[in-house]
C-alpha cells in the first residue's frame, strides 16, 4: 500500500500520523477538487438561472448520487450536513421530537461518542423520556443479547455506534436492527468510524438513520451525511429555516421543499461536498476491502509487537481482530505523558477520554492512548512507535 503515500501531501512532512480515527489525512485529488471549485466555479447552487450555477448544482447533486451508491440508498435519502455531530443532532431534534413522548425510552450504549449520547440525553430531559444505557462487552461491543435485555414496548429509539472510536470493534448492525424493529423502535447508527471500516448497504442492514463525516474518510472537514429512510424523512420537520429549503413563502405561511432539500437551509458547504465526492471515488478506486485487509494486518502486527516488547502495557482492545485502532495505557504513566513523549518524536496519537467519558468511567481510567491506523501507515512506522516506547524512561523527556 506504500504506493499511495505520495497521494497525501501531509505524509512528506516527516511526521508519523497515527490519529486517523480523529481525522484522516486528505489526498491531493480531494484538495485539488476544492481548489478547482474556487478557481473555476465559485458560485452558489440552486439559485438563479446562470449557467455556472447550473453546472455547480449538477456537480453537487452528482455527489449526492455517489454517496447514495456508496451506502446503498436512494439519492433522496442523502442529506448533506456539517458532519456526524450535526447529522445526529438533526435526527434527535427533528425525528426525536416527533416520536418521543414522556413515557418513552431511548437506548444508547455506554461506549457512545458524546455526539451520539448528549443529543439523546438532552431530548430525554426536554420531553421527560428515559435514557437507557445498554452495557457493552469487554471489547466495547454491543451484544444482541444485551440489547434484547433492555428493550421493551416503551423503547422508541435505539442509537448505537457502528464502530466505537475507543475500542474499534464492529457492532453487528444487521442483528441489532432486527431486535430494534422487533420492538417497533427506530435504529439510529453513528457511522463516523464504521463508514471506513466496512462496505455498507444501509437498506440491507435495515437501519433507519446512518450518520457519518467526510473528514474521517479522506474527505474534507465541514461536510457529512445523514441517511434517513425516505418515509421517515418525509414526516420529519426541518429544524433550520431560511433560503433554499422552501417551496413557497408568504406572510401567512411557508411550505417547504421535499426531503432532503428541506434540511439543507442556506448556503451549503459546496466545495466540501464536491471534495467528499472525490474522496468516495478515491476509496472506491483502491477498494474498501483491500484497505481494511491491510489495516487489520498492520494492526495485529502492532498489537503483538507492543505486547511482546513493552513492559507494563495494558491494551484494552487486544482481543478485537477487525479493528484499525489500539487503545492502551502504560502502567502508572498518564496517557498524556505518553502522548507528549511520542509527540516529541513526531509521532501523533490521541490521548484523552476520546469524547467518550461515560465509557472511560466504566473502564475506570481517566484517559487512554489511542493509535489509529490508515492504509498509508507502514510496518516501519509501527516499529518506530514500539522503539520509542521501549526507550521511554520516566516519560517526562518532553521537558528537556
Amino acid at each position, binding site marked *: 500500500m506504500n504506493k499511495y503515500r505520495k497521494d497525501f501531501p501531509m505524509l512528506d512532512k516527516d511526521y508519523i500520523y497515527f490519529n486517523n480515527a480523529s481525522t484522516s489525512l486528505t489526498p491531493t485529488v480531494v484538495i485539488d477538487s476544492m481548489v478547482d471549485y474556487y478557481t473555476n466555479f465559485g458560485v452558489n447552487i440552486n439559485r438563479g438561472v446562470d449557467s455556472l450555477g447550473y453546472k455547480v448544482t449538477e456537480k453537487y447533486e452528482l455527489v449526492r448520487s455517489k454517496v447514495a451508491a456508496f451506502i446503498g440508498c436512494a439519492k433522496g435519502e442523502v442529506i448533506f450536513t456539517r458532519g456526524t455531530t450535526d447529522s445526529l443532532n438533526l435526527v434527535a431534534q427533528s425525528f426525536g421530537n416527533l416520536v418521543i413522548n414522556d413515557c418513552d425510552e431511548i437506548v444508547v450504549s455506554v461506549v457512545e461518542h458524546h455526539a451520539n449520547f448528549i443529543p439523546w440525553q438532552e431530548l430525554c430531559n426536554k420531553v421527560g423520556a428515559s435514557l437507557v444505557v445498554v452495557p457493552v462487552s469487554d471489547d466495547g461491543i454491543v451484544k444482541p443479547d444485551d440489547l434484547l435485555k433492555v428493550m421493551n414496548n416503551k423503547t422508541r429509539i435505539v442509537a448505537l455506534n457502528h464502530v466505537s472510536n475507543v475500542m474499534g470493534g464492529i457492532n453487528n448492525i444487521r442483528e441489532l436492527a432486527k431486535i430494534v424493529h422487533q420492538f417497533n423502535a427506530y435504529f439510529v447508527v453513528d457511522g463516523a468510524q464504521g463508514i471506513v471500516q466496512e462496505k455498507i448497504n444501509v437498506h440491507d442492514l435495515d437501519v433507519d438513520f446512518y450518520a457519518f463525516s467526510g473528514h474521517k474518510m479522506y474527505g474534507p472537514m465541514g461536510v457529512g451525511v445523514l441517511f434517513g429512510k425516505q418515509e421517515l424523512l418525509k414526516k420529519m420537520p426541518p429544524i433550520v429555516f431560511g433560503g433554499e429549503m422552501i417551496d413557497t413563502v408568504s406572510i401567512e405561511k411557508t411550505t417547504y421543499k421535499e426531503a432532503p432539500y428541506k434540511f439543507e437551509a442556506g448556503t451549503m458547504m459546496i466545495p466540501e461536498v464536491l471534495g467528499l465526492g472525490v474522496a468516495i471515488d478515491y476509496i472506491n478506486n483502491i477498494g474498501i476491502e483491500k484497505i481494511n485487509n491491510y489495516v487489520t494486518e498492520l494492526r495485529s502486527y502492532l498489537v503483538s509487537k507492543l505486547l511482546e516488547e513493552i513492559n507494563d502495557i495494558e491494551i484494552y482492545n487486544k482481543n478485537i481482530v477487525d479493528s484499525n485502532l489500539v487503545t492502551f495505557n502504560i502502567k502508572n504513566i498518564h496517557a498524556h505523558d505518553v502522548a507528549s513523549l511520542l509527540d516529541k518524536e513526531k509521532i501523533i496519537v490521541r490521548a484523552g477520554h476520546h469524547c467518550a467519558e461515560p465509557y472511560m468511567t466504566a473502564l475506570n481510567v*481517566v484517559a487512554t492512548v489511542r493509535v489509529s491506523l490508515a492504509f498509508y501507515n507502514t510496518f516501519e512506522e509501527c516499529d518506530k512507535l514500539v522503539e520509542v516506547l521501549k526507550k521511554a524512561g520516566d516519560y517526562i523527556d*518532553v521537558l528537556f
Partner: protein
Amino acid sequence: MSYFDEEQIHREIIMDHVKNPRNIKKSNDDYKSTYLKNPSCGDELTLYVLYDEENDIVKDITYKVSGCSICCSSVSMMSELLIGKNKNQIKAIIDNFNNMVTGSDYNQELLGDAISLKGIVIVPPRIKCATLGYKAFVEVMSDKCE
C-alpha cells in the same frame, strides 16, 4: 552546572513530586476549596486552602489530583511554595511561574522546586497541565475577596 547535570536534577525533582506528593492530608471545613478540570485531557484537581485572613497568611494547602506527571508534580510543588506566604508574596510567585512557562522573564529565586518545570516553555500544549494548580488557587482566593 552543565545542562545535563541540571536536566538530571530537574528530572529527579519532578519524579520525586510525582511519587511522593507533598501536603496530602485531610482537610476540614475551615478550608476553602475549588474543583477544576482540564476538559480536553481529564486532569482533575480539588484544591483546599486554609487562609488566615486576619494575619494574611496561607496556613495550609492540600489537594486531590489525578492527571499527568506535569499536572500532579506542579500542584505538589505549588503547595510547598505557597504555604506560609502572604497574598503579595503569592502573587509574585504565581506571576513568575506563569512568566516562566510562557517564555517571559522571571525570577527563579522565587520558584523553589517549580523551577524544574521550566521546560514547559517548549511544549505549549502542556502549559495547561502545569498551571492547573495555580489557576485553582487563584479561584479559591478570589472567592475569599468577595
